[in-house]
């Protein structure tokens, strides 16, 4: 049956900002869905607050709303657009929850919007623990024994009925297991229940029999309205039950099930799909299997496309999201073609002939004080995937793709930390699921521990451990070659090592050689990888989509064309400081260069991204981003050039080595990119151009640091050289703190000195993104930060156009930027950070490469900067491309960062020079204050329109707060304040209720928070180290999801927004296409049809 023609306009919901548990996989799925629906002739209305996504590019939908994902805003958009249908199954849990709320509030009914993809009852049945349990019982499937509770006493009673600890607590309707956990005793239990009830939007938790240590499996399925069901992929977790599947190392396909056992899962999964009633889309079902008896229990199902769907899609080549969109509009699986084989339909189950390994990427180093034990609450910030012909190869490739400085399964000179653990410590670590556990397993096997012993401690299936044990032992086999010459004399051994996935770096370490020497020796004996195809069918049919992975074997399926090729290096796994923004740039480069007639070759290892979609570039290599792997592809494909400046730090780190090996890096030269990071070069550059920079110095010892700080004056900004996302960067106000920092916080040496800058207090920070081609420099936008200097630019809100800066200052910034671009011979993008104090413009940092703000700027001004930059790198001039002048826009765009503190209880929530945000949102409006307010709303901290606000500001901010507080009071809020702040306000005639400081007595703000009496907190931190009081308060505020404003400038913007909102009554919405109608520039992007 064909698609539905009763629908014309379909509204699609994105998933909002990148947060832990919901990353760019939904950009991938949403982008696929947009493409797919428009291909079918539907009008698409897209809503997503995240500007760094491809799906929010204006050409992917007919109407693109970058607006906060809240029911009220969606209501406005629906009122305006009158869509026929709402498709919420491709935007993660966020979209699903919003759709449910829209339904509950009657919005869908009122505007006659049909929910497609999954019906309300289906979502409810799948998501509501109790309904789900009943459904499973109806079809005779086993679940872990469980009870539902809505309060602590109820929960205690339920726990007693279930029997012994441990028990698992799962809050209803939350994302990535937020607020859940495993309780081993009464205290933990109470704590987890309380937080779980807090997180669950319906204050409901499920208390469950523990199946910790069982094997965990997941099946990805698709079902159409004719009841055709296919299993796209099976996934097995290496980490046993007890670790959130998003935090587990997983492999595809399942490895340790016989056909009978696998079919039993398949039968159960199909029964679940049918009983829950998902009939037009994708779902996943998770199972646990008792390794001793084979008892099977259902854990949960997601009636939507998920993170695992993205993984399954990349692992098999099966376009789940695209097909899900087609099913939602009425197609059946047998009516859709499999693009990869072209001759077979989508109604089949992929067969794969390789092993896929996914490893999560963590960022515990960013959240001091938080627990790094992996539990049922997801904590990873990204993931990497790799494909190998066998498990060992796949695992080693995944480990070197992870960008944690490791080059495989150990044997790379970085194992001392694990090798020096005492047996007792090692045993304890093995028993504690953690991010480094594989290396601990290796250490255990190197010590000769038996497989049984390691299994007993880790509960990892012996099948996986057997392979790890063999790898640990194989190191000696490699060492036995004596040296590199010995290895070269034994090509079979050399090949075997490569088949086992050893990187040149590991072989170099094991044989005390350099990586270059190993590579040369290997090439000399003709030992090169071959490329296999990801074809959905294990070679049964010919594949037409060039999606490759490397392995060592006999058949090389890579057939390079003779076209001019540009290789684009992606960013690897998402982590804090390197997220979807860089993938966005890479994807844009692929699109622009493909249109311009180049053949584009993408190399990346992140399964969540659009860049690793097989139709984003002409050829996709799902490979680790290391010198060895990239060089092979470059040579095999005979590329003309490589773009390294779009993928963030990952490809930049490779640039010098690639160039040394004869790779043509296009765009700004890597030497200049690197030079800009070099302090001495930078200072001389600044001097040469007659610019200002904060007084600074380089210190290799604590003594030097103190001397420099005292010379330039406190406060100072200190950081290690060469870091990403402001890692370990702090503002220091006094000598003891500085001394402590030098000793405890960083490893300092001659080669790795610490940078010390005079910190400009109360300065306004500015970001500029510009484009240059060698002749012309065009400013993309000047962004004024809302937070004062001192907060990492990735964590602070910023606005286009600038809110307070005057024209002379802006002109100075423009001329500085042009001078820098010229001096650094920029060909492509450049980002400069300035601080403005007393109308003086100081330059803080210059990065001649794509920055995090490129997508935000591109969307704000309606010019695809990354596309233009890619074309410039390929030889076009900005004049040819039609972009020669900075645009001025009539609306305001505010970017706000989204922080993951809620996932890391115990860590401080204050913003510092060290970046901590995982994602960003954008607020757009014709009013600056409203744009700011929308950005706050989109970031999840909705400032209530009325009620109580608590204020506690440091002495420095007291004069400034008065006027703002007066306006807040005028808006109808009731102000509570600490004694000091209250006194200042009262003296100025602003009514304020005084509260005790937390440590001084009660009632204090904690009481207000607990009783949900306060809806907004304004707290500007006092000085360098936060007082205990403030820490507690901010922690509680985060836990109770109360918006908290930590700067006066933030308060200023919020108040302006609230005032505008009060005038307007409600938020107004407007699509990107409409905004851009007013600030259009006629670009001439090349289109060379092939």
């Amino acid at each position, binding site marked *: 049956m064909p698609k539905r023609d009763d629908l014309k306009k379909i509204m699609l919901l994105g998933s909002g900002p990148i947060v832990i548990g919901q990353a760019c996989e939904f950009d991938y799925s949403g982008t696929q869905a947009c493409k797919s629906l428009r291909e079918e002739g539907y009008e698409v209305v897209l809503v997503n607050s995240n500007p760094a996504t491809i799906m929010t590019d204006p050409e992917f939908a007919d109407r693109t709303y970058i607006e906060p994902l809240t029911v009220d805003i969606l209501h406005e958009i629906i009122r305006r657009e009158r869509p026929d249908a709402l498709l919420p199954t491709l935007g993660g849990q966020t979209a699903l929850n919003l759709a449910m709320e829209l339904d509950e509030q009657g919005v869908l009914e009122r505007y006659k919007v049909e929910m497609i993809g999954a019906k309300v009852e289906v979502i409810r049945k799948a998501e509501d623990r109790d309904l789900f349990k009943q459904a499973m019982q109806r079809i005779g499937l086993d679940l872990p024994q469980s009870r539902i509770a809505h309060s602590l006493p109820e929960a205690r009673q339920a726990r007693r009925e279930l029997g012994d600890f441990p028990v698992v607590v799962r809050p209803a309707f939350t994302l990535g297991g937020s607020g859940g956990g495993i309780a081993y005793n009464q205290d933990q239990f109470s704590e987890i229940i309380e937080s779980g009830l807090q997180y669950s939007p319906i204050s409901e938790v499920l208390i469950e029999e523990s199946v910790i240590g069982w094997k965990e499996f997941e099946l990805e399925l698709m079902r159409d309205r004719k009841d055709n069901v296919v299993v796209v992929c099976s996934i097995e977790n290496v980490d046993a039950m007890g670790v959130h599947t998003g935090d587990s190392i997983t492999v595809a396909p399942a490895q340790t099930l016989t056909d*009978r056992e696998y079919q039993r899962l398949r039968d159960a999964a199909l029964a679940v799909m049918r009983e829950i009633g998902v009939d037009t889309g994708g779902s996943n079902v998770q199972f646990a299997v008792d390794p001793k008896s*084979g008892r099977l229990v259902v854990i949960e199902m997601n009636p939507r496309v998920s993170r695992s769907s993205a993984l399954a899609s990349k692992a098999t080549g099966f376009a789940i999201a695209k097909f899900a969109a087609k099913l939602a509009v009425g197609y059946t699986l047998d009516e859709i073609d499999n693009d990869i084989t072209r001759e077979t339909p989508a109604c*089949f189950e992929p067969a794969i*002939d390789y092993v896929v390994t996914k490893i999560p990427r963590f960022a515990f180093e960013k959240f001091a004080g938080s627990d790094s034990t992996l539990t049922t609450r997801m904590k990873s910030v990204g993931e990497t995937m790799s494909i190998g012909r066998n498990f060992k190869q796949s695992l080693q490739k995944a480990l070197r793709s992870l960008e944690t400085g490791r080059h495989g399964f150990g044997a790379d000179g970085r194992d001392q930390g694990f090798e020096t653990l005492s047996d007792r410590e090692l045993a304890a670590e093995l028993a504690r699921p953690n991010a480094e556990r594989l290396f601990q397993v290796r250490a255990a096997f190197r010590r000769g521990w038996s497989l049984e012993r390691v299994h007993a401690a880790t509960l990892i299936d012996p*099948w996986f451990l*057997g392979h790890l*044990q063999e790898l640990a032992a194989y190191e000696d086999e490699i060492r036995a070659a004596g040296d590199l010459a010995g290895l070269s004399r034994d090509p079979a051994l050399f090949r075997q090592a490569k088949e086992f996935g050893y990187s040149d770096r590991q072989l170099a370490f094991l044989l005390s050689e350099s990586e270059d020497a190993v590579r040369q020796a290997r090439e000399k004996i003709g030992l090169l990888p071959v490329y296999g195809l990801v074809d959905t*069918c294990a070679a*049964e049919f010919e594949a037409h989509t060039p999606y490759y992975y490397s392995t060592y074997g*006999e058949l090389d399926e890579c057939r390079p064309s003779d076209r001019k090729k540009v290789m684009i290096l992606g960013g690897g796994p998402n982590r804090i400081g390197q997220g979807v923004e860089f993938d966005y740039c890479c994807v844009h480069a692929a699109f622009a260069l493909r249109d311009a007639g180049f053949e584009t070759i993408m190399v990346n290892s992140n399964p969540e991204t659009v860049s690793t979609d097989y139709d984003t570039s002409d050829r996709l290599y799902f490979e680790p981003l290391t010198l060895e792997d990239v060089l092979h592809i470059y040579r095999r494909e005979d590329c003309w050039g490589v773009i390294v400046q779009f993928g963030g730090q990952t490809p930049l780190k490779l640039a010098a080595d690639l160039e040394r090996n004869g790779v043509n890096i296009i765009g700004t030269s890597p030497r200049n990119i690197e030079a800009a990071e070099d302090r001495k070069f930078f200072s001389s550059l600044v001097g040469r151009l007659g610019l200002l920079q904060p007084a600074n110095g380089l210190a290799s010892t604590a003594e030097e640091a103190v001397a420099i700080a005292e010379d330039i004056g406190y406060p100072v900004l200190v950081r290690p050289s060469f870091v990403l996302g402001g890692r370990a960067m702090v503002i220091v106000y006094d000598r003891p703190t500085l001394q402590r920092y030098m000793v405890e916080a960083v490893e300092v040496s001659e080669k790795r000195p610490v940078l010390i800058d005079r910190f400009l207090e109360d300065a306004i920070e500015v970001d500029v993104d510009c484009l240059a081609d060698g002749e012309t420099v065009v400013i993309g936008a000047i962004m004024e930060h809302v937070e004062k200097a001192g907060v990492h630019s990735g964590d602070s809100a910023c606005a286009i156009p600038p809110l307070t800066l005057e024209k002379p200052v802006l002109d100075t910034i423009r001329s500085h930027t042009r001078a820098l671009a010229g001096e650094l011979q920029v060909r492509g993008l450049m980002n400069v950070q300035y601080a403005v104090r007393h109308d003086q413009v100081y330059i803080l940092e210059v990065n001649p490469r794509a920055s995090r703000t490129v997508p935000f700027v591109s969307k704000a001004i309606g010019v695809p900067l990354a596309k233009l930059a890619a074309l410039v790198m390929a030889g076009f001039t900005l004049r040819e491309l039609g972009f020669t002048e900075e645009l001025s826009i009539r609306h305001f765009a505010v970017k706000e960062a989204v922080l993951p503190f809620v996932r890391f209880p115990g860590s401080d929530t204050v913003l510092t020079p060290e970046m901590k945000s995982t994602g960003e949102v954008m607020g757009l409006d014709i009013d600056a204050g409203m744009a700011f307010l929308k950005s706050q709303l989109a970031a999840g901290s909705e400032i209530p329109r009325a009620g109580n606000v608590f204020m506690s500001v440091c002495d420095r901010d007291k004069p400034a707060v008065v006027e703002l507080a007066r306006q807040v009071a005028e808006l109808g809020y009731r102000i509570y304040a600490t004694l000091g702040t209250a006194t200042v306000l009262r003296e100025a005639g602003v009514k304020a209720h005084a509260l005790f400081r937390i440590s001084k007595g009660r009632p204090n703000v904690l009481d207000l928070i607990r009783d949900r009496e306060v809806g907004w907190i304004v707290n500007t931190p006092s000085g360098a180290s936060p007082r205990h009081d403030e820490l507690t308060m901010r922690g509680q505020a985060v836990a109770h999801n109360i918006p908290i404003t930590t700067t006066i400038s933030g308060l200023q913007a919020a108040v302006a927004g609230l005032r505008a909102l009060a005038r307007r009554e409600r938020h107004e919405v407007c699509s990107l296409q409409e905004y851009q109608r007013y600030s259009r520039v006629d670009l001439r992007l090349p289109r060379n049809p092939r």
Partner: protein
Amino acid sequence: MKSFAPQGRSGKTVEEPSYDWGERRAGKAFLALHDGTIFRGWSAGADCDRLGEVVFNTGMTGYEEILTDPSYSGQLVAMTYPEIGNTGINHDDHESRQLFAEGLIVHQMNQPSNWRSVRSLSDYLRASGVPAIVGVDTRALTVKLRTEGTARGYLAVTGRVGEDEAVRRARDWCGLDGQDYAARVSAEQAFEWDGDGHISTTWPDQDRLPAADLTVAAYDFGIKWNILRRLRQQGIAVRVVPAGTSAKDILELETDGLFLSNGPADPAAVTYAIDNIRSLLGRLPIMGICLGHQLLGLALGGRTYRLKFGHHGCNHPVKDLTTGKVEITSQNHNFSLDPDSLPPDEMEITHINLNDDTVEGIRHRKCPAFSVQYHPEAAPGPHDAGYLFARFRELMSG
């Protein structure tokens, strides 16, 4: 018994694992194809060489079922999934009394980790006298078979035959065309299937079996046990009879129906069975699977032809033309019925393969007889088509 401890070359469980990396590197075993292509690897099965038709199977699970499926008689099976042996061999998943494939070709052979495993695959192959080669680039082999068609091969693991000699043997071998292998694998004596029901209720189908109120005679051309289990689970008692049993002898059994089993090699060579089926058509309700399906078609005057590289796997989409529904099926065949050869007034095509439009199921328009090319009994593979056994029951009851 759980047997995850690494095993030494003696096959005994040992504390310290020992690895045969050197032996693997030596790559002394090889597979020679009739066109002279050699694939190298090492031996991990019995120490003997074998001739066979080389086919690839794309199933990611189910090697135990595949190796014990009599339809693989005469064939050297290459598994496209690279990690094999992971779940060992257990007591429940055999598809017949013994191992029937001529040899196994894999990329990687593993020690088992599974709660039902009783021995490793490697041990089982050795004990069964079947050779295996490990370390082969099975994707390269598969691409070759896909583009050039099924090959005749000689699997050499003993070191007693040189490459040229192995190629010559493969080239000179007659292959499976025109060969009746059903007679070789069929039971010699008729027997009652699973009188006490214990095999039909093996893990995890622990439910009680219904009383057997119907009986069927099942021609054993290489029948898989799961067909027998499924029939029994439908309340059908099965009398398994040798491939050569005459139509008269069948009728004397006075069963409620006749089942035509799967089996190896070329259906056109099993002429006696074709004749018997022709004379039984209309006298008993008939269901056929795989070779049985081809024989039913041949009995009705149809023709079979050889597919380029056959269908061997667990993921073939088949559309039931009577309902429009698609089922994911388990398949294992090299021959197929030519749709143009079937008399349209007598036969109706009920199922087609969505990958290549080949005939997957037929039904007689007048007589109670139907058959499918694929394996509704699965084992290995999805259970989507299990309803066909109920359909057979209905045919016999009604």
